[in-house]
């Protein structure tokens, strides 16, 4: 499936990442299509965070290719994706100023940036806190603000690296609902998690990563019903923590 002006599908071939002598990712290849959320799961240290950073362009591959569907559109590929980190990085400014910051960077005028930032805040239920200092928010509110900030950019692809790892169950649910809303609106979600329940709730598709290798890519239903590899089966039974 290929929309006329889309950066998807994302084609990844032979992706390797080495840090010194250590091979963190080995020969990873897959295609990400437009559609429901793709969840990257796998034990601790499998290379999930490194993979997302590579895809988002924050790290350079040691070998292999990351090929976006439309490298030369009107808007550069980098401007059409956004990323959320495990710990939200919030500027020492108001909630609204945080949400508006990347829009201003992208060249929007002050008024337009503020208007779109407010839409983002409304999406995550933070419009009432717009003038508050961002870093005084609770952990869950901070991650919701990071989501609002990313959503305001209207990215085609949104990467999320364990966005709920530091959150309590209620805040986790709130974040999941927002992610589901964005997915329903057509944003391609690519998200890592080590929380299997979360993966079941959100995933349309699963990529199972283990020790730097992609062992499975499958529709969520099929994966959870019967994973193809012994490692994935062990992981689903909760026996594979590393």
């Amino acid at each position, binding site marked *: 499936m290929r929309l006329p002006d889309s950066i998807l599908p994302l084609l990844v071939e032979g992706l390797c990442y080495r840090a010194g002598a250590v091979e963190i990712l080995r020969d990873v290849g897959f295609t990400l299509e437009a559609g429901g959320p793709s969840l990257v799961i796998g034990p601790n240290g499998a290379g999930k965070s490194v993979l997302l950073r590579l895809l*988002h362009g*924050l790290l350079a591959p040691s070998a292999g290719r990351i090929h976006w569907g439309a490298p030369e559109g009107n808007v550069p590929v*980098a*401007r059409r994706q*956004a*990323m959320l*980190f495990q710990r939200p*990085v919030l*500027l*020492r*400014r*108001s909630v609204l100023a945080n949400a508006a*910051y*990347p829009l201003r*960077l*992208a060249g929007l005028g002050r008024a337009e940036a503020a208007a779109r930032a407010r839409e983002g805040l409304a999406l995550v239920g933070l419009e009432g806190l717009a003038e*508050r*200092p*961002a*870093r*005084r928010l609770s952990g869950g509110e901070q991650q919701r603000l990071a989501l609002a900030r990313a959503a305001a950019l209207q990215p085609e692809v949104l990467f999320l690296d364990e966005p709920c790892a530091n959150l309590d169950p209620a805040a986790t649910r709130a974040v999941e609902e927002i992610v589901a809303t964005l997915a329903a609106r057509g944003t391609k979600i690519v998200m890592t998690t080590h929380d299997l329940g979360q993966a079941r709730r959100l995933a349309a598709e699963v990529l199972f990563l283990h020790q730097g290798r992609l062992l499975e890519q499958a529709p969520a239903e099929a994966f959870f019903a019967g994973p193809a590899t012994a490692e994935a089966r062990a992981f689903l039974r909760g026996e594979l923590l590393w």
Partner: protein
Amino acid sequence: MQDLATAFATALGLVATADPAVTGILLLSLRVSLTAVALAALVGLPLGALLAVARFPGRRAVLVTLNALMGLPPVVAGLLIYLLLSRAGPLGPLGLLFTPTAMVIAQAVLIAPILAALSRQVLEGLWEEYAEQLRSFGAGPWRAVPTLLWDGRFALLTVLLAGFGRAAAEVGAVMIVGGNIEGFTRVMTTAIALETSKGDLPLALALGLMLMAIVLAVNALAQGLRDAAAGSAG
């Protein structure tokens, strides 16, 4: 002890009578040092921010040099500016030697490296925290400089105060390029040096107490501003 008590009494007397000569000296001290801080900040803070974000060959050498310049003796800074501004010097025709402007320049030269080195330290931590997120937004190191300067504003205020303290307390630079001319370039520190050499220790000490009070007041004011702003911006 006797001297100290006399000094306090003298200081109180000077304040109470608002001695015009002393008031003039005090105001000039404030004006020269605050202007010098502002001038040095214009160069020092962006330079510090740039050094915090930029990675280039020779960066370590620049940082070592900058840290060494923090210990630049005021007389040396004064001498350099003296040579530049003296009649035979390249900037001699401007006729700035022995004017308050020359004193501002000398103090600015003295504290710009301090502001740059300290702000580099303060902002490097902030950059570590922000770098990945800013890159994700498409902001490279250059674009990060104004962001870091703004987001580090409270820490940078402390850096500015350190610069102000250094400027207000130094005597060597203003003495050399200002000349300690009564009613024109005499500031608190040069007045103290003069009274000490004349043997009027109580007066010298009284002026010293007033200088400390001024520095304390500026710090308290800045701290108050910072607290008020921090309450609304976090």
